[in-house]
């Protein structure tokens, strides 16, 4: 496993690295796991499963009102119908931002996140600052991301305390009339689908 051969001598990490290597060796020798299957899982998260899937879903919802209705009605069913390579599990719920309401997703108890459509969560999403503050001071959290919303906008925080997974459907930026789905998808950032960011302004996309 070439992945293990990075040189990190003397750091705290090397202890973890050795411990994880021991774990993998024991599990392999016991016949529980196959390292080649591990390689494929890692490769899939590094190359196939990521926020581009969610961005395509959002762009389609912006472009196709019937799909948007289907998505808000049953997220898993609607996304599955698109036939993406990362097959979407049950319990995906899309929540829509409007001028009156902004949605933010968190998991205060662990780090539940819609992996199927956004890939693996960023470190900040799993961090104590985000998990502790998102439910109590979401405007302060948004400020950490440089996002300021009107004082009258309702802030709706979804704490992912069960196996339901939430995807924020951001508002389509104005000035994108007539854009194709592919072009719209370029505006959709990961953070916009978590609710800690907004889509890119149209002028940022050629």
């Amino acid at each position, binding site marked *: 496993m070439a992945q293990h051969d990075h040189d990190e001598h003397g750091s705290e990490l090397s202890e973890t690295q050795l411990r994880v290597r021991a774990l993998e060796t024991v*599990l392999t020798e016991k016949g529980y796991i196959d390292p080649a299957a*591990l390689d494929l899982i*890692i490769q899939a998260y590094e190359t196939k499963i990521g926020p581009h899937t969610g961005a395509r879903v959002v762009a389609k919802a912006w472009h196709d009102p019937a799909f948007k209705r289907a998505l808000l009605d049953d997220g898993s069913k609607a996304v599955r119908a698109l036939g993406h390579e990362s097959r979407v599990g049950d319990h995906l719920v899309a929540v829509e931002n409007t001028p009156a309401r902004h949605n933010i997703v968190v998991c205060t108890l*662990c780090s539940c996140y819609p992996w199927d459509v956004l890939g693996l969560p960023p470190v900040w999403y799993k961090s104590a600052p985000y998990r502790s503050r998102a439910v109590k001071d979401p405007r302060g959290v948004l400020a950490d991301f440089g996002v300021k919303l009107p004082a009258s906008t309702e802030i709706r925080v979804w*704490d992912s305390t069960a196996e339901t997974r939430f995807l924020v459907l951001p508002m389509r930026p104005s000035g994108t009339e007539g854009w194709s789905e592919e072009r719209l998808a370029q505006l959709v950032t990961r953070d916009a689908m978590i609710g800690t960011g907004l889509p890119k302004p149209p002028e940022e996309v050629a």
Partner: protein
Amino acid sequence: MDGVHDMGGMDGFGKVQPEPNEPVFHAPWEGRVLAMQRSMGYAGAWPIDASRFAQERLAPQAYLGASYYQRWALAMERNLIERGYAGADELSSGHALRSGKPLARKLTPDLATQAMTRGSFYRQAQTPARFKPGDRVRTKNIHPPTHTRLPRYARGRLGVIELVHGCHAFPDTMAVDKGDSPQWLYTVMFEGKELWGPDADPTLKISIDAFEPYLDPA
């Protein structure tokens, strides 16, 4: 359990620090840990809530001092030992000293992609749903010493049923090997003031997903 993992509403952790151009993994071992966890899950070694419960049982200073994937690794070691899949002597020596315990199945390369799809947590309902959207409910003031998904900040609070998600496997029993115990699952919405008092942001609404045993009619 009332552990440090239950962080909602705690102060003092500081600002959120987004990392520009963050890599998927910060070190190769992180990917190995994630993939081992997925493989053991596929093999049916223990349910996901047993992984969560093992993390929650880490000493608070260990939980807070460890990175996300370090916590996963520590929890995996704990489940392996507690469930007899490996001995502490084997993990410390880095080699199997005894043969393995039988598992239901094994994740092989030809199945790896298939195993990436999340399993369903839907279960056959044993009873009709007790609540419907719009119903007022009060969360129970419970403090089980074991795994629960009712966060402290939302206990004993008045909320409104917003969504009904069907009947799901119940984490509180799954985590301690007491079965699926299927329960109705609801999104319950709370006003900011109900959770954080009169000084809360008046535009704030927070929801949790709550299993029926967490709720009383109000």
